[in-house]
């Protein structure tokens, strides 16, 4: 059960530190939304270049849980889609990320319906 726990902590922590530095060392106009967009796009680019896979092998959840891991899954899905289905496979990223997107939409909706804003 404790396998990969320390690598996940260190890799995940360091990936978040980069985001914190982006937010603290730049203008206040860099909102969490900008950071998340940067991370998902960065994950796609690093995934396409084959640079994110070693990070996943090294850090496990430390690399897949940050949003850059979502980008990596999207890029991986597109590449594998082309290998399997040719041209239509270029849209395979969404297919690979379907579980994450679907769960986020459904549970995001359910929670927003069930709960009420604080205060």
């Amino acid at each position, binding site marked *: 059960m404790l396998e*990969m726990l320390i690598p996940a902590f260190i890799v995940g922590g360091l990936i978040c530190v980069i985001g*914190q530095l982006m937010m603290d*060392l730049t203008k206040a106009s860099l909102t969490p939304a900008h950071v*998340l967009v940067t991370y998902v796009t960065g994950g796609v680019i690093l995934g396409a270049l084959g640079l994110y896979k070693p990070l996943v092998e090294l850090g496990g959840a430390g690399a897949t849980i940050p949003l850059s891991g979502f980008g990596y899954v999207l890029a991986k899905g597109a590449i594998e889609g*082309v290998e399997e289905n040719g041209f239509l496979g*270029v849209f395979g990223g969404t297919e690979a990320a379907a579980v994450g997107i679907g769960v986020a939409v459904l549970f995001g909706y359910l929670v927003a319906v069930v709960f009420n804003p604080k205060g």
Partner: protein
Amino acid sequence: MVNKNLRPPTLNVTPEEYKKMTAQISPRPTLIKNVVLAFLIGGLICSIGQIFINFYIIYGGLPKLAASTAGTATLIVIGATLTGIGIYDDIVKVGGAGAIIPVTGFANSMVSPALEYKKEGYVFGIGAKLFSIAGPVLVYGISSSIFVGLIYYLLDLLR
């Protein structure tokens, strides 16, 4: 509005000097504190994800990739629920990027505005606001992945 004669009684500096001093001293400790907290909270959330993944491999018999997907999904549900009961926003205040960047933070970025604008109705309130941050993330993430797929397809043709 500020009365320049009003100085802290024990400080022998002008307000300008005081401002300069605080500017010199305060940012660094804040930055270091933020970075350490981002590391700890981000690392902790990823470790919890890893525990779920290990659990799904050992007790669920899932292959590694499916277990990783299931672990991500689990953290999304946890992030959404903690936002619903009003805890996750406090975690973000402490952990900063360490709480924003993991998928729990992505779930928070969906639920938080949806709850805030709930009174605007199920379509323009919850339905639309779920995507005020997730929308841009999906637009840029999915579009760039399609772009990657196209490049890969063209390179494949040239081979």
